[in-house]
């Protein structure tokens, strides 16, 4: 970049650098999918799928033996499984936010990252959905959750937040998947047109839904995309709000608080952006996408991380304030315990990762330093996992009656499921970047200077 100006708001500052043309974009991105499997990819895929096998093996053992293989106990009925669930749902937030909300706000810089942010969303939600399914005591009876009409007139309990969860996350997943797929259609058609073998052509043809790039098709496409974006936007807010009601509607001190919905949404966006950042930086490096995923994009994302990080920081302090202000002795006790009790180590890990470390992004230099942002994004991921752990474990372990207080210690199976879920996530992600265009080619072309009818061709003189 020649000019040190923040991009995103100004059409004059190019979002895509390196003198790209429509065909160079197509070539660049399609070649990742079409070239031979690289050794790096094979290595990573081997690693990720091994971890996925750890997940599958652990799930098998879990179903065989029972929930007892985890560290959960009587006061702490939910352990890492639910922490992981909330963590992954949170990760899944950035995709829709980037795709839908930024789309509606005409944030053109989103185009470079939206495709794989969306993919990340879907995979994260898949990982999240694994956990509610397996964390129940009787997996084989899990269909009782479904509102299936039956002769006994037995329905699920519509007052239970777990049921709301089931619908909220299910809806979110469905809409995110549709949204992602809709955006993929033009690019799938591009790949189809470039396909060299008959089978590949046929398969891609099926998924490209007969896309020909005609004007009418583009018109319908854009409308559909806009509508889906509109549909997805409330979901960004709703899904984690609903997840937060799992806790907020309970009577347990530390859970029973109205701040949870906005706090959880902010936290979700925070963690989602951090995960997008982590993944984007790796993909950018491996596939040399520096010109498409520019420092400007990363800078913008870091600003969002800084903002949402401060929002969760505010929520943490507000929780403390309310705990004291409410005069509820149980509530204030649990917050003092969070900071200074048996789980203080987890609490301060969370505060450090989520509140202190992102403050480094006040510095523009740090915002634009690849190693710094990579490290920070990892810390935020860790911190947000701990946030959920702190909420669940501290509140349950020391509730109303001291006689039942107990400490939660994870077992090897708790760890293996968390690690394994990353295996599942990365396996899916690696399959995605290998087989589907990880950057939205059609949309990128839309933000190239050439796409602007008023384009003065000065870009070529860069």
């Amino acid at each position, binding site marked *: 970049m020649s000019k040190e100006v923040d991009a995103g708001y100004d059409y004059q500052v190019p979002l895509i650098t390196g003198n790209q043309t429509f065909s160079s974009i197509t070539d660049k991105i399609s070649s990742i999918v079409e070239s031979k499997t690289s050794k790096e990819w094979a290595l990573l895929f081997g690693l990720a799928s091994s971890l996925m096998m750890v997940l599958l093996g652990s799930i098998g053992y879990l179903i065989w033996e029972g929930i007892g293989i985890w560290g959960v106990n009587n006061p702490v009925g939910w352990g890492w499984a639910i922490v992981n669930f909330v963590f992954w749902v949170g990760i899944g937030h950035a995709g829709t936010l980037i795709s839908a909300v930024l789309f509606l706000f005409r944030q053109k810089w989103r185009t470079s990252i939206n495709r794989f942010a969306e993919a990340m969303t879907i995979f994260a939600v898949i990982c999240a959905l694994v956990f509610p399914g397996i964390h129940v*005591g009787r997996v084989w009876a899990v269909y009782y959750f479904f509102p299936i009409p039956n002769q006994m007139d037995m329905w699920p309990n519509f*007052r239970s937040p777990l049921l709301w969860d089931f619908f909220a996350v299910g809806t979110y997943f469905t809409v995110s998947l549709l949204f992602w797929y809709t955006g993929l259609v033009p690019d799938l058609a591009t790949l189809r047109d470039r396909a060299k073998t008959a089978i590949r052509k046929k398969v891609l043809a099926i998924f490209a839904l007969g896309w020909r790039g005609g004007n009418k098709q583009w018109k319908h496409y854009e409308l559909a995309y806009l509508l889906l974006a509109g549909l997805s936007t409330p979901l960004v807010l709703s899904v984690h709000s609903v997840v937060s009601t799992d806790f907020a509607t309970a009577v347990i001190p530390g859970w029973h608080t109205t701040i949870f919905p906005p706090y959880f949404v902010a936290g979700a966006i925070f963690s989602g952006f951090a995960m997008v950042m982590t993944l984007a930086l790796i993909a950018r490096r491996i596939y040399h996408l520096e010109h498409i995923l520019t420092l400007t994009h990363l800078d913008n994302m870091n600003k969002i991380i800084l903002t949402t990080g401060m929002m969760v920081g505010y929520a943490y302090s507000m929780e403390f304030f309310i705990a004291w202000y409410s005069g509820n002795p149980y509530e204030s006790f649990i917050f003092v315990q969070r900071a200074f009790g048996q789980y203080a180590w987890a609490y301060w890990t969370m505060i450090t990762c989520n509140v202190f470390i992102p403050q480094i992004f006040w510095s523009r230099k740090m915002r634009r330093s690849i190693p710094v942002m990579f490290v920070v994004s990892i810390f935020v991921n860790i911190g947000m996992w701990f946030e959920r752990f702190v909420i669940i474990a501290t509140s349950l372990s020391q509730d109303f009656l001291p006689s039942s207080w107990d400490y939660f210690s994870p077992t090897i199976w708790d760890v293996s499921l968390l690690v394994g879920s990353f295996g599942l996530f990365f396996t899916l992600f690696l399959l995605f970047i290998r087989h589907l265009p990880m950057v939205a080619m059609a949309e990128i072309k839309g933000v190239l200077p050439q796409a602007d009818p008023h384009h003065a061709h000065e870009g070529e003189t860069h």
Partner: protein
Amino acid sequence: MRENMKENQKQYWRSLDERADTPEFREIVEREFPEGASELKNPVTRRNFLGLMGASIAFAGLASCRRPVEKIVPFVKAPENMIPGVPKYYATTFTQGRHALGVLVESHEGRPTKIEGNPEHPESLGKTNIFTQADVLNMYDPDRAQEVSLDGVQSTWQAFGSFWKEQHAAFKKDKGRGLAILSGEFASPSLKKLYDQLKKEMPLAAWHVNEPVSEMNMHKGLKAATGKSVQAYPHYEKARVVLSIDHDFLGATPGNVSANRGFAEGRRTEDEHDTMNRLYMVETSFSVTGGMADHRKRLTQGGLEVFTRQLAAALGVIDDGAEAVESKWMHALVNDLKKNKGASLVVAGLRQGAATHALVFAINEVLGNNGVTVDYYDNPDVVLQSESIQALADKMKAGEVKTLVILDRNPVYTASSIDFAGALGKVEHVIALSSYWDETGHAANWHIPMSHFLESWGDATDVRGNRSVIQPLIQPLYNTVSMTAFVNFIVTGNEVKDSDVVKQTWGAKDNDKNWRRILYKGYSASTLKPVKVRARSGAIAGLVKASSVSAGKPSTSAMDVVIQPSSSLYDGRYANNGWLMEVPDPVTHLSWDNAALMSTATAEKLGVGNEDVITLSAGGKELEIAVSVLPGVADNVIALELGYGRQKVGRIANGSGFDVYGFMSAPEVYSLSGVSVSKTGRSYPLANTQDHNSMEGRPIILEADLEEYRKEPEFAKEAVEHPPLVSLWDERKYDHGYQWGMTIDLSTCSGCNTCVVACQAENNIPIIGKEEVKKGREMHWIRLDRYFKGDPDNPDMLFQPLGCQHCENAPCEQVCPVQATLHDEEGLNVMTYNRCVGTRYCANNCPYKVRRFNFFNFTNSYPETIKMVQNPDVTVRFRGVMEKCTYCTQRIQEAKINAKNEGRIVADGEIQTACQQACPADSIVFGNILDPESRVAKLKKQNREYKLLVELNIKPRTSFLARIKNPNPEMETVA
């Protein structure tokens, strides 16, 4: 009844193979049980058998080890009044040493499942203690000894029979020279008759009596003081002031049923104008009785004896009390006792010396208590321990014992401090009768498996002389012999059925109406009158003079050790009982282990903490044991519990805890001094079910002194301030029909743990093992919370039994996604196990944390016999489902069905929950809260009534009655 019993038995077959009638099985039958084989070959009988018994498949498999049964026929003629699914109750007697408790045993299709108190038996009045509740599990213990063995090799009763007949004849000729018998204390007409017969026919034979947890000093002291061999029977209900000198009469002590009942009677208050008793406790360790005390003082073992002498001196019982009474505490106590002459009571525990017990008798006499608050009985049926087991061991070592018959004792374990096993080596023939092939069984030549009391005939007499019959509910599951039949055989050399021995003693004939009545009622009322005994001051003074005492000054380098029975395993006899092994000790809350208990200050001085392993050494003996810090134990004293550290009993007992018997200086000596302690640097995991001992200032157990209560009668209602409670939903009214509710009186609950085990027995609650308990997954539906309060060195101890509170506005119900937990019309919070998916959300949202989750399939690995102890009225839960207290919904349903059939409504008191029925203090009351005449409704109107966590607007149906203490106002000035 006996006839019914026999009929009942016949529905069992020996195994599934038998049911299938495979050729292989026929072969086995013909080889092993020739007399039964012809029956199987008879097609008609077999067809009937199979046809009628198909429904009872659950009982299959039981039988492989049974004794040959003469006939196998089905219920061609069903026993009278036997309706499948409707349990029957039979009266029998539970004994523990010299104590007897009349019980009613619930029997489902011939299978005893639950022991309850016999409401008519004067000692029980329908109540039980923790051991009674758990004993039924012992009968079904798959680790019981099942066959006669000789030197560890399986043998037969016939072989033993011919061996003993020879021996018996020889001994008879020799007047019993070289024969020794070792038994426990007993109070039984039949056994006493045989005891007397042996003494008469074989005067040279020795009959030694030993209780590992021995009250010998108590007997000796009383004998010295009165000149007679009498047993004391305290009437706690009549005492306004009780002083207990290290006597845990409310805890796991035989005889605690009437003690709890009596004490609770004296303590219960209806309103602020009521009076209540006052309890002073001086003790070394911290017992549940100490927790109940209004004033408690920690003293060392020697200090207790000095204290007793000072007290005696202050009351003018002895005049050589040179030490002046320096403490204000003593002054206040003495004044209080003097003020309540004839209405006070002093009792002393088994660790105290004979002199102390003699002094206690004299003190009670001076206070005019004898004959009023404590009676003395000279029971002709009782045989008490009069000398140490050391005497027997000495005889054995001297080669004076040729044949030793051990009757249900385990001296190799309990007398290991004097190397009883070594002494056994000097005995030619060792014959041991016991339920388990235990440490003594291994060392014996002949081991005879003993029948459980539910399989036996026998009789027993309680302290006050009420004679009762032990009648069997089931034929022995294995090739076992009852105590009565065995003792009869040993003494007479004739094999007589135990039923005949008992009938003979009672002079009963088969169609004797009176006998049938006794069997039906379970007992025949006492004709024994309390004896009038006077203190023989000379003898007492002599005894006091003979034993010098000093308070001692234990320090961390020379500590005191006191040894007490386990509150669950007692002397170790219940070590293989899973319910008792797992039930947390009420005071320490340890499960599956015993530990070295010491005060916080002592632990700090020693530099040890929970789970650290220390080595105690004294008198050349060493004991490695884990530490558990228990505030309230006297400083520089370590309290140890007996009964653990077994090696050769069964899967539950082996390897659990530490064996303390070996560390004792001698049997029957329950204290040590000059014990040195060293750290090993290792640690040993202890499963403690309550990690946090403080209420954190929360209004959980509400408590007031009587004076405060009188000033502020509504203190319990006003304890919690909260904003107006508004519900999110339209609330159900619950204003018609039955509305069930419960009250628990915290004033009278002593923390004896009986309710916890009763609930476990009634509701098929699994045991889960130490590892799982340690993880915090214990399954008890009702738990006994214990909190400490006040001075961390000498705290108050408070108990609160807590089951599901059946909130009308239940937080668990709202969050269950599949409606597996719901409210019924009668206000019960019910669980639908089939619908439960196991999200555990309900447990998380339960503010009382009383919901229990089946983390594993805990019931899957049950041995066949354990399956038989399950209550058929209660579902056995599978893994992955939540469970919790149901207010014994099966009992509610049963009563409702009965009432409906009879066209009436359920009467108050007709339904008793298992915890309520067992509670010896009658602290738990259950009933219809809408019926203004019901006991529970009346109790709920008391001003002490409060509900836990009322500020959450969850409207629990269980109320607590606040705990009232009655401290001596004079004591207030005492530090």
